[in-house]
């Protein structure tokens, strides 16, 4: 079984997983309105790290928070990152893309390549293996975990360190603005008045290993799948094709009643949330509580799949279904069980669901103590 041995989140809400979970549980959010930031003509709402807190000139801010997040995740383990049996997988959509701006000259240009950025990280940890960077749009964080599971199943490595990261910049924000995809206010996942997403900075790390036996408190990554809508490169399928198929495989033969919740992508764009409601219903999961964490963090892109898996594991540990911040009135055509309040649960499994540009979708089933 593929077991989570350690994790960390670095976000505007804290620098440990525990700090982050406590903040989310109490309803905090780092979403703020920024007007004129980075010379952008239109204001936007985002969850941003304090750029002045990252002063190590050897590394870009993305690299700094990746190194910090992995270091913290490693703290209470005895993993030797110099071992060839340890593999690093980075999950990022845009990495150091800000280096393309002609006014940026603090770092070597080749660090704009994701593989070079990843090598800086493995160099820092003395790891001899070529790092793999998963760059699969917004589903990267779940894809990277599925890759980790496969590498561990193949027996080639003892540990896989998965770190998801993205840091916002004029490049990303202006692009989403050109898509008219950003909400002028704090986002409202699954709500009738939702009108777009917010973006966010974060790095999040999960370390996995393979074990024959697990105890009741250990988190198992049971199975996951990646599926395409085969419909459109920027709009989700009207029938939730890829998400439905990914969900069906992640669920497998598990009784849906065993699920505490589905942690959806829930970006709060009109099309995404509607599509997820269709996919969830088609997969026979309409009775399972659904939540979205975008109202706390915004969309953290390459980090989202990792960050949201970690928060969801802690919520189950705490017997809690986190409320969907920003949600008031259900605004999707297929009925979903969404609430803005925290709710109690005794169930021990959840599905993390994501979808992204390129028509890609991913689902991952996580179960505490494994499937019994």
């Amino acid at each position, binding site marked *: 079984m593929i077991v989570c041995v350690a994790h960390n989140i670095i976000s505007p809400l804290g620098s440990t997983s525990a700090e982050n979970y406590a903040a989310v549980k109490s309803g905090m959010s780092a979403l703020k309105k920024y007007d004129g930031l980075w010379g952008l003509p239109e204001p936007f709402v985002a969850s941003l790290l304090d750029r002045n807190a990252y002063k190590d000139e050897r590394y870009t801010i993305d690299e700094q928070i990746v190194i910090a997040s992995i270091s913290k995740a490693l703290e209470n383990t005895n993993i030797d990152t110099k071992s060839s049996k340890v593999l690093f997988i980075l999950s990022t959509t845009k990495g150091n893309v800000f280096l393309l701006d002609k006014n940026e000259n603090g770092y070597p240009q080749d660090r704009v390549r994701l593989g070079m950025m990843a090598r800086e990280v493995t160099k820092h940890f003395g790891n001899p293996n070529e790092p793999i960077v998963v760059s699969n*749009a917004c589903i990267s964080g779940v894809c990277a975990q599925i890759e980790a599971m496969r590498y561990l199943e*193949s027996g080639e490595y003892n540990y896989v360190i998965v770190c998801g990261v993205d840091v916002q910049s004029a490049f990303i924000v202006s692009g989403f603005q050109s898509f008219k995809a950003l909400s002028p206010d704090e986002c409202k996942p699954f709500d009738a008045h939702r009108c777009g997403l917010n973006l966010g900075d974060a790095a999040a790390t999960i370390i996995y290993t393979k074990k024959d036996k697990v105890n009741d408190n250990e988190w198992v990554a049971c199975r996951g799948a990646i599926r395409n809508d085969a419909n459109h490169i920027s709009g989700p399928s009207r029938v939730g094709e890829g998400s439905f*198929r990914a969900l069906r495989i992640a669920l497998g033969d598990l009784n849906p009643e065993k699920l505490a919740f589905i942690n959806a992508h829930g970006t709060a764009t009109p099309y995404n949330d509607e599509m997820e409601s269709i996919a969830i219903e088609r997969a026979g999961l309409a009775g399972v509580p659904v939540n979205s964490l975008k109202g706390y963090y915004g969309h953290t892109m390459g980090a989202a799949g990792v960050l949201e898996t970690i928060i969801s594991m802690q919520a189950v540990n705490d017997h809690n279904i986190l409320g969907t911040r920003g949600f008031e009135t259900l605004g999707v055509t297929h009925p979903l069980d969404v609430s803005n309040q925290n709710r109690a649960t005794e169930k021990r499994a959840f599905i993390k669901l994501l979808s992204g540009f390129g028509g890609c979708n991913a689902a991952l089933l996580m179960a505490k103590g494994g499937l019994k």
Partner: protein
Amino acid sequence: MMKHSVIITPEHVLVDGNPLMHNEKGSALLTELYRNHIGDYPKFFKMDTLSKLGFIASELLLNIEGDRDFEPREDRAVIFFNRSASLQADTHYQSTIQDPEHFFPSPAAFVYTLPNIVTGEIAIRNKYFGETSFMVIDDYDEQIIMKNLKNAFQDPITKSIIGGWVECSDEEHFEAKIFLMEK
């Protein structure tokens, strides 16, 4: 098991190891291949260079396989690797926002600033509901790629993969080395 392969560089095209005739080089080569071997998919002209390259290479690959019925299927994955991710599209999009006096961010350019879009284009063209994935390593490494693709057969439905290397750093510099693999 590897069934077929296609290699495209700015100067050469090899289909299952045999050279394919062409007159053009560089970006004009991709357009020539489109006109001579595809021709009925005008969306091609909207694509970034990475997507054009991956799309053409996959079309040549699937033409050798034959029997193109475009029936929906879930058992075929599209998994690519490269070095520069979507650098050509990134650079193009950056040019639409660089000058504050002419700040017109282009959505059609932005959408291609994700390297996995090429896998989506191929899935759309062929109605593949299967896995699509894109990964980046800083140097071509056949061993890493082959091991990863072998791992991808752990998926319960995947029976074949269009996989390999699809690299493009700018409009004139690219390299596709892709193949059709069966479980």
